[in-house]
């Protein structure tokens, strides 16, 4: 039986070869009669031939890869059971991969998790962020303006303050100068009293200087008293004048 079958097979192969090269559809009605007899056997034979033709010596997975098929039909390790791997298989090999494409979308739980993450990572809407930045900018502008006003008012007063300071310095200098001149005058007077130049560190000099200073102070005091009296008298006169005018 085998022998006769083989004969038929060769014929079939020949026909299929012709089929390959022919441009018109071949009539295979006569052969169908033969094929019906033992299809399984035939398929097994074909498979065997196909196996023999494969002289690549590649591993099955690699052979699949090279021929554009997914490498493993059955899951081979734990990673092949993951959603990520299956998605990848679908992305790369399409429907032929046999993966249900509904895997490509996140599950309800994953959506919830994503929403939660986004609520934390992006807590504000665009409008809220815009308003907040606008507010910040406005505050910054306000701060700058206020500082500008502050500086402007201070600059306006600057000339006055400069004048005040200069006056103060000049007054102090004048006072110092007056004190110095007074002292010099006293020393000159003492010198004139002795009639010759005397060392200011001398005892006599110091004595006379002290005396002179005392006298000077006395005079000053007297002058002050007189001025006070004069003022009093003037005031009294004025008052009496006012009274007389009233009466």
């Amino acid at each position, binding site marked *: 039986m085998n022998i006769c079958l083989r004969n038929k097979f060769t014929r079939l192969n020949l026909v299929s070869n012709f089929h390959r090269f022919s441009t018109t559809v071949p009539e295979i009605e006569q052969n169908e009669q033969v094929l019906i007899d033992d299809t399984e056997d035939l398929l097994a034979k074909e498979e065997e031939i196909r196996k023999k033709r494969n002289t690549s010596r590649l591993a099955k997975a690699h052979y699949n890869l090279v021929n554009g098929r997914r490498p493993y039909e059955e899951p081979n390790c734990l990673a092949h059971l993951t959603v*990520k791997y*299956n*998605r*990848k*298989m*679908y*992305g*790369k*090999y*399409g*429907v*032929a991969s046999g*993966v249900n*494409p509904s*895997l*490509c*979308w*996140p599950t*309800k739980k994953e*959506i919830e998790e*994503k*929403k939660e993450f*986004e609520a934390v*990572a*992006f807590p504000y*809407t*665009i409008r809220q*962020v*815009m308003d*907040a*930045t606008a507010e910040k*900018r406005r505050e910054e502008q306000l701060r700058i303006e206020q500082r500008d006003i502050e500086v402007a008012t201070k600059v306006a007063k600057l000339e006055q303050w400069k004048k005040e300071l200069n006056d103060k310095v000049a007054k102090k200098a004048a006072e110092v100068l007056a004190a110095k001149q007074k002292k010099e005058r006293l020393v000159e007077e003492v010198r004139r009293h002795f009639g010759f130049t005397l060392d200011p560190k001398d005892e006599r000099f110091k004595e006379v200087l002290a005396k002179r200073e005392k006298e000077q102070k006395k005079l000053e005091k007297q002058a002050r008293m007189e001025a006070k009296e004069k003022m009093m008298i003037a005031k009294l006169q004025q008052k009496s004048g006012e009274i007389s005018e009233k009466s």
Partner: protein
Amino acid sequence: MGSRQITEKSLVMLRSLPRLSLANIRDNPGSKKNTKRGRGQHGGDKHGAGNKGSGQRQNYMRLGYETGNNPFYLRMPHEPYYKGHHHRREYPPISLLEIQKLIDTDLIDITQPIDIASIVKSGLYNFFPDKKHFGINLTDEGVDSFAAKINIEVQWASEQVIAAIEKNGGVITTAYYDPHSLFLLKNPKKFFESGQAIPRRMIPPADVIEYYTSAETRGYLADPEKISQERFRLSQKYGYELPNIENDQCYTMLCERKDPRQIFHGLEPGWVVNLKDKCILKPKDDELLQFYAS
């Protein structure tokens, strides 16, 4: 007489010598280095490591260490001009001149809206989202010779650049993409082959929200009314006549904009693109639709 003899003799000698060939030439001096290290009493000696110290012991000091001195890199006081530079966003530049070159060499199709994906696809621009690169900075080099009518979307642009593009009847938008979206735009094929649904684009951070919402910078979140006002204002400022887009034959192309949540032109978030089957799968579940629409 004598000199003639010498000449003949040397010629004879020369003739008897073999021809110059690769087989009988010597290597260049110093071209061959012995890979083996000498051994034995005087064979190796110091093996090129020098005499004494860390050189001989080959325990090299760390970079910048000055054997106990106050090192140079610590000698200066702290100068914080670049404080936080490694956290700042970068926008790797591409100039208008280069864009013009890409257009002239037909690496960019100007009948379609141009975005970062199409510029990367030209192969002459690259960026790295993982190095804090946040997209394209379109610079004004070649601003005077730019002469293309384009609808371009970049991440940063100056006023001159905006003026140059609008002067030619084009349209420019500045748009923010989060790093994840930029990875997708940089290599869409890789993403599509991972079999995931296209995600949504995230909103810009607070410090650039002003840039992307203002009409002067043609931000993608700005009011279109204001943008058209600004277009006119800019044309007045730079003194050119604003071409009327409404009457243009590619008006629809020039008006195309991405949704603020959209990453790819023509593809909405939530869709799955399969390159093998050349098909697009769209979700129908209400919850998914709601999630991707938000």
